[in-house]
C-alpha cells in the first residue's frame, strides 16, 4: 500500500466531510430561513391558519378527523355504502355469520366472498351456516343493487360495493352477517349511522345556536336578561338529565311517525344540551366586553350586532367548535341509550340504539355475537369525535404554549 494512495484516500474523506458540512450548513440555513418565514407567516397568519397548523401536529386528532369525514359521508349517503335493503327480511337467511371478503383469487386481485349454505339443525333447531367453497361470489365496486334515494333528491341503484353479476338478493354478501329476521346487518349499520350521527350533529347544532344566542345576550347585556337566563340555566342543570329525557320521550305520542319521533328526540336532546355552552359564551362575553378593541369598536360607532358578530364572536369561534365537537358524542350516546331502553326511536326506524336494543337478548349474545357490532361503531365514533374535539381545543388557542 503506497503513501500516495493513503493521502488520496484521506483527501477524499476530507472532501466528503467538507461536502457534508456544506450540505448541513445549507440545510441549517434553509431551516433557519424557513423558521424566519414561519415566524413571519405566524405574525400575519389569520386565526384559523394558526389553528390548523397547530392541529396538524396532533396526529391522532388528524386520524380521528378522517374517521369523522368518513362518517359524514356515510351520514349523507348511507344507501351508497349499503349492499342490501336494510329493511328487507329474508325467511331463509336468519343468523348468517359475518362473511369474510377474500381479496386474492388465483394470485390476482379479484375480491370475492364464498357462497353459504344454511340448514336448520333438526335437533337444536338452530340455523347452521357452512361456507360453500365451490361457489365464489365476485365483488365489484360501484355495482348495481337496490334502489335508494339520495338526500331526497333523486333515486339511484349504484352502490359502493356489490356483486359483479346477477342479483344481489340471489348471491347475497353479508359483510356483518344477518339478524334473526335475515336482515343485512352491514346495511342496517349504515342507515343506523345516518340516524344516530345526524341526531348528534343536529341537536348539537341547535344547542350551539341556543347557547351562543342566550349566552351572548346574557353576557353582553347583563342585568335582568342575564339574571333570568342564568336562573333558567341553573334550573335546567339542576334537573337530572337522564330521567328528564326519559320522561320527555315517554310523553311523546306513540303514534308519531318515525320522522316525527326523530325530530322530537333531536329537539329534546338539544333543549337540554345548550346550557353549558351558554355559560361558556357568557363568560367570554363578560371578559371581552371590557377589552380595548371592543371599546375601540364602540367608540368608532359600530352597531351592536357588528360588535358582537364581527369583533367578539370570532375570537372564540374555535372554542365553540371544540366544545360542539365534544358535545356530539354525548348526544349520540344519549340517543343510543334512549333507544336502547325502548324510549327513543323504535323499529322500523334504524339507529344504533335500536340495533343494540334488538341484540339485547340471550339468543343474539349466545349464537349471533356479530349483532353486537353496532356497539363497536358507537365506541369508534365517540372516540374519534372526542379525540378530534380534544385536538381542536388544544389547537384553538394558537398563542398558548
Amino acid at each position: 500500500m503506497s503513501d500516495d494512495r493513503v493521502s488520496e484516500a484521506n483527501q477524499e474523506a476530507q472532501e466528503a466531510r467538507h461536502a457534508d458540512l456544506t450540505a448541513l450548513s445549507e440545510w441549517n440555513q434553509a431551516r433557519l430561513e424557513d423558521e424566519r418565514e414561519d415566524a413571519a407567516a405566524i405574525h400575519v397568519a389569520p386565526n384559523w391558519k394558526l389553528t390548523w397548523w397547530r392541529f396538524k401536529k396532533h396526529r391522532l386528532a388528524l386520524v380521528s378527523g378522517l374517521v369523522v369525514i368518513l362518517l359524514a359521508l356515510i351520514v349523507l349517503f348511507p344507501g351508497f355504502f349499503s349492499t342490501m335493503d336494510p329493511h328487507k327480511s329474508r325467511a331463509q337467511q336468519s343468523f348468517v355469520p359475518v362473511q369474510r371478503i377474500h381479496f386474492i383469487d388465483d394470485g390476482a386481485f379479484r375480491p370475492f366472498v364464498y357462497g353459504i349454505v344454511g340448514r336448520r339443525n333438526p335437533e337444536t333447531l338452530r340455523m347452521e351456516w357452512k361456507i360453500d367453497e365451490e361457489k365464489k361470489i365476485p365483488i365489484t365496486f360501484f355495482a348495481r343493487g337496490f334502489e335508494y334515494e339520495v338526500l331526497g333528491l333523486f333515486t339511484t341503484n349504484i352502490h359502493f360495493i356489490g356483486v359483479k353479476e346477477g342479483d344481489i338478493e340471489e348471491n347475497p354478501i353479508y359483510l356483518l352477517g344477518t339478524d334473526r329476521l335475515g336482515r343485512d346487518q352491514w346495511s342496517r349499520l349504515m342507515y343506523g349511522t345516518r340516524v344516530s350521527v345526524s341526531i348528534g350533529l343536529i341537536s348539537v347544532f341547535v344547542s350551539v345556536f341556543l347557547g351562543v344566542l342566550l349566552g351572548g345576550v346574557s353576557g353582553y347585556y347583563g342585568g335582568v336578561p342575564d339574571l333570568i337566563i342564568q336562573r333558567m340555566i341553573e334550573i335546567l342543570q339542576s334537573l337530572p338529565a337522564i330521567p328528564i329525557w326519559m320522561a320527555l320521550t315517554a310523553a311523546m305520542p306513540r303514534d308519531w311517525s318515525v320522522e316525527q319521533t326523530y325530530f322530537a328526540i333531536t329537539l329534546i336532546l338539544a333543549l337540554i344540551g345548550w346550557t353549558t355552552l351558554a355559560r361558556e359564551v357568557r363568560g367570554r362575553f363578560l371578559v371581552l366586553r371590557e377589552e380595548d378593541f371592543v371599546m375601540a369598536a364602540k367608540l368608532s360607532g359600530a352597531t351592536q350586532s357588528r360588535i358582537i358578530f364581527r369583533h367578539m364572536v370570532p375570537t372564540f369561534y374555535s372554542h365553540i367548535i371544540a366544545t360542539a365537537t365534544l358535545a356530539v358524542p354525548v348526544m349520540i350516546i344519549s340517543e343510543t341509550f334512549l333507544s336502547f331502553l325502548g324510549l327513543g326511536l323504535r323499529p322500523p326506524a334504524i339507529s344504533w340504539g335500536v340495533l343494540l336494543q334488538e341484540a339485547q337478548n340471550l339468543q343474539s349474545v349466545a349464537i349471533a355475537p356479530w349483532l353486537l357490532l353496532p356497539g363497536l361503531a358507537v365506541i369508534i365514533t365517540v372516540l374519534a369525535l372526542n379525540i378530534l374535539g380534544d385536538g381542536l381545543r388544544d389547537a384553538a388557542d394558537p398563542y398558548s404554549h
Partner: protein
Amino acid sequence: MKRNSSNPRNLLLISVAALILILVLAACASAPAPTQAPAATEAPTAEAPAATEAPPPTPTEAPAAEPPAPESKYNEAPMLAERVKAGELPPVDERLPEEPLVEEGVEGIGQYGGTLRRAFLGPSDHNNYVRVVYDALVRFSPDGSEVIPHIAKGWESNEDFTEWTVYLRPGAKWSDGEPLTADDILFWYNDILLNTDLMPNPANWMVNNDGSVATVEKIDDYTVKWTFKQPNTAFLLDLANKDGADLSIANLAYAPAHYLKQFHASYADAAELEKMVKDAGFETWVELFTVKALPQTNADRPTTAAWVPDNSTVSDPVFVLKRNPYYVGVDPEGNQLPYIDEVRFTFFADKEALNLAAVSGELDFQARHINMSNYPVLKENEDKGGYRVVTWPTFGGSDAVFMFNQTYQNDPEIGELLRNKDFRIALSHALDREAIKELAFLGLGEPRQGVPAPNHPYYPGDEWAYKYTEYDPDKANELLDSIGLTERDADGFRLLPSGKPLDIEINVVPAFGNWTDVGQLAVEQWAKVGVKAHVEVRERALAFQMRDTNDLMVEIWNEDTTGFPFSGQPKMDPRSNPALTFGPLFRKWYETDGKEGMEPPAEIKKLVELIDKGKVSGREEQIKIAQELFRVWADNIWEIGTVGLTPMIQGVVVVNNNLRNVPETAGNDWPLRTPGNTRPETFYFSQ
C-alpha cells in the same frame, strides 16, 4: 252422552286393568311411559273414573319405600315425621282422608326431598303460582282429555245433567288441619257467591239461563248437590277451573269457612272487624275479605293444595311454598304426596335474565316465560346446565293470531274497516306464513287459522283450518281495491276513503311468544299490498286495561281456550270476562240486554247461540256444535291465524335432569293450568 250408564262390569274391568298397570309400573319404577297426548276434550264424565281411585294397594316388592313402621298405613316425608315426633303434627294416618287420592307419576314411585326452583316475574305473574298448585275440587288429566277427581272424591249427575252431586273425601283437611266438609262449599255459596257486597254479579257459570242463580245444597257432611234449571254439561269443566289459588274470589268454589268467618261481616263481631279493617289500612270489610280469602295475597289462608305459601306472597322477591302436611294425595305405595319439600319462585325483573338462569341450569322446572326462540341456546347447553328440554305443543289453533276488534270506535272509519270481512281476508292473504314460520317459529308448526288441532274432536276440517292462509298478494290487492281503498299516498300506502291515512296499530304484549317479531313481519308484508301498520309493544297490565276500555285496534295473542268453547271464559264467546280484543262492546250489549254497547252482527249472534246450545248438549251433539262453531269462526276470520301447533306458548319446558316423573308430552293450555295438570306433586328429585 250415556257414559254414566256404562255397565258396572266394564268399570270393574277398567279398575282391575289399572291396578295391574300400577303394580307393573311400581315393580319397574324406572320405565317411563310417554304416550302421545291425545287432544283434550270436554267430555263430561258423569262418574269418577275408577282408574285413579284404586285403593292403596299393599306395599309391593319395591325396596326403597318399604314402610319401617308397621302400625302406620301410610308413609310421610322425613321432615313431617320429625314434626310428628315432636308432637307438632298428628300422625300421617290421621292427616289423610279415609280414601286418599292415589296418584302415580309417569316414571313411578319417587323419593322425598328437595326444592323445586322456579322463576317468576313479580306480582302480575301470579298465574305462575296458580298453574303449579292447581288447587281445584276436580281437575284436568295430564293429557287434558278428561276431568278427574282431585280434592273431591267424585261426582254424579242425573240423566239430563241438571243435578250434579259432588262427593268430598271424609277426613280430608285444610292445610291448617281443620276438616274440609260440605260446609266449606256452602260458605262459598251463601256467603261469597250470593253476598252482593262481595260479588255484585254472581259468577256466570253459576247463572241459569233465566238469570237466576243455581242452587247448592248440602246432602250430608261430605255430599253437596248443585241444581241448574237447564242441563249443564259444562259443569265439571267449569268446576275444574274454579281454582282456590286464583287471584279472584269470583273463581272460588269452596273456601275455608272456619278461617274466613272472622273477616266476614255476617259472622264477625262488627267492632272487631272494623278494627281489623282499619289496622290493615282498608276502607271496607269487602276489601279486607278479598285479600284475606286468597292464598296468594295471604299466606295464612288455609288451602288444599300440595304446597302452601310459606310466610310469603307473590309480592315478595322470593315466594316460597312448603309442603302441605294434610294434602289428600298418596302414591300407590301409600307415600303421602308431594315428594318435593318446597317450591321456590325467585323474582326476575327481566325475562332475558330468567332465560339465562334456565340456560345455566338454575331452574329445575320452567316453561312459563321461556322464550321459544332460545330453544337452540337451551338445547346446546343441555349437558352443561344439567337439564333436558321437553316440548309440550299447544293443541289449540294458532300460536300467534291477529285479533281484530269488532267494536273499535276511536276512529269510526278504521272501525268500519276492521268489521269488513274482505279487509280481513285480504290481510290474511297478504301474510307470508312460511316466512313467519321460519323466522319467528324456528321452522316449527304449520300455517293455519285459529281452530283446534287435527287430532282434536272439535277439528272442523282442513278446509277451514287452512282457509285464507295461502300467500297471495295479488288477491289481497284485488280485495283491497274492491272495498274502496284505491287511493294511495306518496309512499304507496293506501288511504282511507275519506283521504285520511290508514295506519293499523298492532298491540303486542311481550308475554309468551315471539309476537313482536310476528308483528313486525306482518307490518312488512302488509306494506307490500299498501296497508300501513305499526307494532305497539305494551306492558301487560296496561294492555289488559285497554282491552276493557275498547282502545285496542288489533292485538296479537295466542289461541288459548280453543279446546274449551263451552266452559270457562272462551275467547270465541264475546260475553267472556276478561275477554280478549274480540269485541268489548258486544259484552256490554249482552250484559245490559241491548241497552248499552254495540249490537253484534248476525254471525256473532250465531256464535253465542252455538255456545249456549253446546253447554246444554250431550257429547255427540257438543262435538258437532263445536265443529260448526269453528267453521263460523274460521269463515268470518275475526282473527287471522298465522302458525300453530308449536310449543311457543309455555311449551318449551326446561327440566332438571334429576327431576323425574315429568311427562314427555302433556296437554298444554290455560284451562288445564299446565303444568298443574301434569301433577307436579308426583315429581321428585332422584338422588
